[in-house]
């Protein structure tokens, strides 16, 4: 008797898993900061335009590519792309869909482990009675590995991810999504309520929580014509929807050809938008502004939302006192943990899909191999966090790679595979009628949008490659100790890039081996 193929348990489970894949720490830490930095309420206009013209089309494209590949038993991008055209090189473009997941998971699991650790410290009262500087110092000591604790939490987090992945799609990933997503929303609603009802003069607050919302949502319409704002909006849509990664293709490849993808894609995509725009905007900034004032928060968000989320919020929660302070800490970091784990699990599945499809591995073996690879590749991000290794992984794998892959995949889908065939794929089994304007948008508008985002990022990429920022810092200092530190940082940064490049080449080699194996076994290739 043949073993039953892996599948989703239920449609709601698939949508929650797909939404969980998209909902990440960025929904709560990155979106509000991007809004503050790019025109407040006016940011929402380019943001929503990018969602309609780039995000939704990419969701349709990735869901339908995934389901199309799944028909031929492909569950990862190398052979999904390979099945869409006769030319042989597409499978190597598909390498991005595995590379990104492995590389991002390598640093993302570390970030995820911080949330787990901060939940523990919220419960154990580590932040109780500490000053804001002490709480911030706790974070600095943590990432500097002054104790072994960060490594322990990181390994626990990796083991948890791997164990869940080893339980398969419906037995692991889907179950976590069904528990994690509702809990995340409950925690988010609680924190948003507390943030909005914050009153100046009560519990140490200097401003009403509403002042934060007012600051965040006041539109500065003069920013709307700025290319920088549009690039930031497009970038945010990319990160928030997890497009250009290969994980959506993988999840969708387990959907049968006559089942809907159009409504599923919309439902999961909008669920992510609800969490990001409605909940994400109502927590971090209103609480921070309520306690610290607008000027201080603007200054703090200049370096991103991570510091505010981990260094400042635990101190602010303490102002609520007693049980409420503990519960708020658990809710905030618990929410971030669920946002993180539902995303990191999605990063594991394409890698496992590849190993299972091409080398006949069982789910457990594939999961534990993924865990081991992520451990080995993640080690430098943990040990050398202060040398910029973590940021380097994030930039190349979590930013540049996504844009490159999304740009190429939409060209493949709309221009090589063909828009007529592509549209049929989107509409097959659809439970909603997708407006036919999207045929035009996918063919012309989205590629132009993505091309513009890519071209707009080129100066930044060049500055990164040439280490402009580090050289600038070296030029600005005369202290030999600082110069030595910056040179050491440059060595680690360059080493990270070489490591990532070698990873891409190694995956490409595995794809080549798999291709040869397929030919030898007479299995389907393009």
């Amino acid at each position, binding site marked *: 008797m043949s073993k039953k193929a892996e599948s989703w348990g239920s449609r709601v489970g698939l949508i929650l898993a797909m939404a969980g894949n998209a909902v990440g720490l960025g929904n709560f830490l990155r979106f509000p900061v991007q809004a503050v930095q790019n025109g407040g309420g006016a940011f929402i206009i380019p943001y*929503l335009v990018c969602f309609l013209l780039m995000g939704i089309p990419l969701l349709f494209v990735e869901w339908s590519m995934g389901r199309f590949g799944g028909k031929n038993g492909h569950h990862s991008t190398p052979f999904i792309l390979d099945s869409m055209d006769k030319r042989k090189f597409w499978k190597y473009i598909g390498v991005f869909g595995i590379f990104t997941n492995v590389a991002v998971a390598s640093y993302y699991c570390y970030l995820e482990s911080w949330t787990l650790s901060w939940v523990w410290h919220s419960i154990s009262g580590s932040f109780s009675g500490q000053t804001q500087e002490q709480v911030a110092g706790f974070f600095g000591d943590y990432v500097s590995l002054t104790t072994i604790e960060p490594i322990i939490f990181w390994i626990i987090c990796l083991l948890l991810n791997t164990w869940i992945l080893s339980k398969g799609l419906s037995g692991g990933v889907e179950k976590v999504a069904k528990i994690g997503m509702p809990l995340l929303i409950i925690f988010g609603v609680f924190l948003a309520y507390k943030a909005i009802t914050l009153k100046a003069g009560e519990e140490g607050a200097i401003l009403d929580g509403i002042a934060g919302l007012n600051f965040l949502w006041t539109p500065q319409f003069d920013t709307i014509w700025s290319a920088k704002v549009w690039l930031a909006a497009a970038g945010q849509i990319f990160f928030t929807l997890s497009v250009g990664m290969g994980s959506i293709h993988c999840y969708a490849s387990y959907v049968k050809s006559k089942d809907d993808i159009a409504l599923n894609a919309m439902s999961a995509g909008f669920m992510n938008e609800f969490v990001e725009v409605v909940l994400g905007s109502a927590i971090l900034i209103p609480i921070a502004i309520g306690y610290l004032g607008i000027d201080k928060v603007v200054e703090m968000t200049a370096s991103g939302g991570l510091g505010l989320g981990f260094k400042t919020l635990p101190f602010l929660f303490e102002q609520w006192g007693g049980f409420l302070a503990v519960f708020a800490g658990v809710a905030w970091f618990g929410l971030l943990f669920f946002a993180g784990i539902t995303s990191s699990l999605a990063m594991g599945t394409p890698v496992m899909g590849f190993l299972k499809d091409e080398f006949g591995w069982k789910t457990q073996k594939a999961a534990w191999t993924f865990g081991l690879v992520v451990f080995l590749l993640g080690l430098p991000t943990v040990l050398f966090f202060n040398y910029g290794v973590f940021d380097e992984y994030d930039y190349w794998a979590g930013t540049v790679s996504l844009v490159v892959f999304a740009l190429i995949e939409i060209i493949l889908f709309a221009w090589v595979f063909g828009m007529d065939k592509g549209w049929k794929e989107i509409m097959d089994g659809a439970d909603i009628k997708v407006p036919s304007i999207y045929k035009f948008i996918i063919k012309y508008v989205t590629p132009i949008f993505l091309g513009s985002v890519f071209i707009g990022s080129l100066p930044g990429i060049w500055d990164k490659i040439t280490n402009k920022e580090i050289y600038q810092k070296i030029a600005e200092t005369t202290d030999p100790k600082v110069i030595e530190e910056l040179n050491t940082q440059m060595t680690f940064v360059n080493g990270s890039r070489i490591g990532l490049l070698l990873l891409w080449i190694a995956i490409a080699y595995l794809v080549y081996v798999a291709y040869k194996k397929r030919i030898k076994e007479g299995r389907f290739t393009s």
Partner: protein
Amino acid sequence: MNTSALITMITTEVIITAVTFYFFWRVLKTPPRPEEDSYSDNDEEER
């Protein structure tokens, strides 16, 4: 809150919340297909 911030926030959040709930309601309302589909829970129900 000033009027422009209030209008921007309420308009955006109401639209996004309404569309999110509408699509999710459509998912819940759509009955499973009679033939074998992608979801193992539906297979078990048919047994």
